[in-house]
């Protein structure tokens, strides 16, 4: 076998070679002084570079987005700061993704502080907004209808808006068009005697061309309209009830208005047009309100989706997090830390080795890291074999069934996510 290159030696120290290669290399190093010397040199660079990179730990100030755990303290002895958990609850990225996502995906939204926002509160606001919008829009349209329904007669403009109803004509588009049968009286005129008073010389709003009784009038004059008529010089006595209209007044009307049916048709068509506009605007308002409600529902869904995605898992999930190791190390580094070969559980293959804070291992010196060999059983549960070199004067535990014991200069502790009985059995297999 030729001399070993540095890359191979680093792969060896990093635990990246399989067992067969390791045995070959060990056999070669045992017989090659040059490679043995090189391996020692490589070990030195390997360990030193790991230490140097470990110096570049994150500062302990709270992150802009996340809070540090309260127990995150630097490990001054090893010069390696304890890993800080920087992952807080997932929040939406402060920047929108630069690339366009799926079209169905809403843009990132800031989560409101008020958890009720986007549920009942938003819907209530939208309902109020829609109600106000419809009310204002309807009022505006009703106001717009006044001049459109007015018509001119005999040089004076009279507002014929149906102010008595307050909201313009209660007539639908179909009602506003002339009836096919002019002989039929308007039921509204018969049921509301007060509204049947029409001024003299004023064409009724809806009047059959030749009423047999002179009472088939649907136009309703209101108090403001009458007032306007009075101001224009129409005497009050000129106002007669439709039911009391005489033939003379009918003649007068006929004289002043040569073609009343034409005017009536104009008024009706004008009113029908205004009604159609009103209907159209109402539909537009309803569509706008529905669209707004749809948008709010989509936003609420997006917020809920993000909230669901942001809810942090209660427990760390990676083996490193579960094992509370802050740095993975290789077999060689572990042996270097302990000053002797690492203890292992016979018959089990380690998942990985790492350094953990001494405080996380009962019985260990909290000021120094422990080497934690992590195993995983068939059910995915982790088992930790902690090892720490004893210092002179440091108390030693008596050997026995306790999960904490000493072997030579090494303090050991066996723990994990398995039961006590399993640990007790594994304890006998530690070599």
């Amino acid at each position, binding site marked *: 076998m030729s001399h070993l290159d540095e*890359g191979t030696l680093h792969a060896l120290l990093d635990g990246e070679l399989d067992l067969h290669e390791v045995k070959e290399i060990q056999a070669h190093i045992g017989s090659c002084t040059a490679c043995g010397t090189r391996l020692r040199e490589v070990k030195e660079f390997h360990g030193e570079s790991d230490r140097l990179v470990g110096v570049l730990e994150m500062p302990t100030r709270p992150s802009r987005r996340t809070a540090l755990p309260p127990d995150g303290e630097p490990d001054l002895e090893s010069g390696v700061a304890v890993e800080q958990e920087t992952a807080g609850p997932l929040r939406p990225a402060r920047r929108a993704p630069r690339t366009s996502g799926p079209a169905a995906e809403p843009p990132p939204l800031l989560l409101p502080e008020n958890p009720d926002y986007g549920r009942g509160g938003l819907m209530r606001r939208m309902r109020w907004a829609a109600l106000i919008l419809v009310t204002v829009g309807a009022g505006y349209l009703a106001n717009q209808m006044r001049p459109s329904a007015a018509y001119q007669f005999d040089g004076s403009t009279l507002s014929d808006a149906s102010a008595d109803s307050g909201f313009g004509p209660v007539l639908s588009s179909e009602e506003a068009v002339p009836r096919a049968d002019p002989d039929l009286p308007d039921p509204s005129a018969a049921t509301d005697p007060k509204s049947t008073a029409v001024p003299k010389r004023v064409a009724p709003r809806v009047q059959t061309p030749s009423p047999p009784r002179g009472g088939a009038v649907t136009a309703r004059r209101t108090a403001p309209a009458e007032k306007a008529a009075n101001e224009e010089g129409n005497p009050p006595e000129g106002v007669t009830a439709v039911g009391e209209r005489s033939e003379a007044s009918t003649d007068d009307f006929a004289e002043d208005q040569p073609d009343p049916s034409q005017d009536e048709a104009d008024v009706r068509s004008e009113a029908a047009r205004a009604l159609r506009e009103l209907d159209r605007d109402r539909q537009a308002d309803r569509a706008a309100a529905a669209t707004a409600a749809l948008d709010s529902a989509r936003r609420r869904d997006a917020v809920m989706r993000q909230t669901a995605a942001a809810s942090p898992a209660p427990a760390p999930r990676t083996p490193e997090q579960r094992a509370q190791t802050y740095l993975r190390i290789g077999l060689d580094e572990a042996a270097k830390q302990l000053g002797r070969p690492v203890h292992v559980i016979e018959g089990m293959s380690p998942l990985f080795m790492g350094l953990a804070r001494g405080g996380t291992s009962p019985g260990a010196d909290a000021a120094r890291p422990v080497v934690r060999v992590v195993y995983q059983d068939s059910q995915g549960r982790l088992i930790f074999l902690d090892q720490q070199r004893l210092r002179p004067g440091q108390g030693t535990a008596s050997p026995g069934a306790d999960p904490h014991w000493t072997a030579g200069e090494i303090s050991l502790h066996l723990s994990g996510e398995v039961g006590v009985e399993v640990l007790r059995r594994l304890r006998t297999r530690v070599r």
Partner: protein
Amino acid sequence: MTADLAQLFEDLYPSLVRMLYRRTGDRDRAEDLAQETFARAVSAPPDNPRPWLFAVALNLVREDGRKSVTRGRRLELLRNEQDLPAAGPDADFERNEDVARVRAALAKLNERDREALLLRAEGFGYDEIAVTLGLAKGAVGTTLARARRRLVEAYRAQDRGNHVAS
């Protein structure tokens, strides 16, 4: 963001930010770049997430570095964070000095060596390093060997320089 990506964020964000911090020396920038990386993962979920995320993050560092140069901003690799752990004035000073020396040594490495070293420090195996950096797996050991040697030598050279100066 799907549940998988949320879990990915939970698992890899600390490691990604730490690597970016070691690479850039600026925690805020590291967090921004990590956020940007995950934002890209949202729009194009990767099949092999860990190498993908770290490769994207390292690309962003390079892009960000080029933009910084064009804007006349200095790279902050050597920036000395003022908010390091408080362990008393002397310890603080010594630690800051040490961090600055390590950063200076790291800056002397070429891009690939530096990235390989930082990925290894995050627990990447040789396979993952090869995928992330686009290397052959057989070249990873050599790359790491060169990176480690240069880092230590650059660090020690500063020590020698300091001793000569004093």
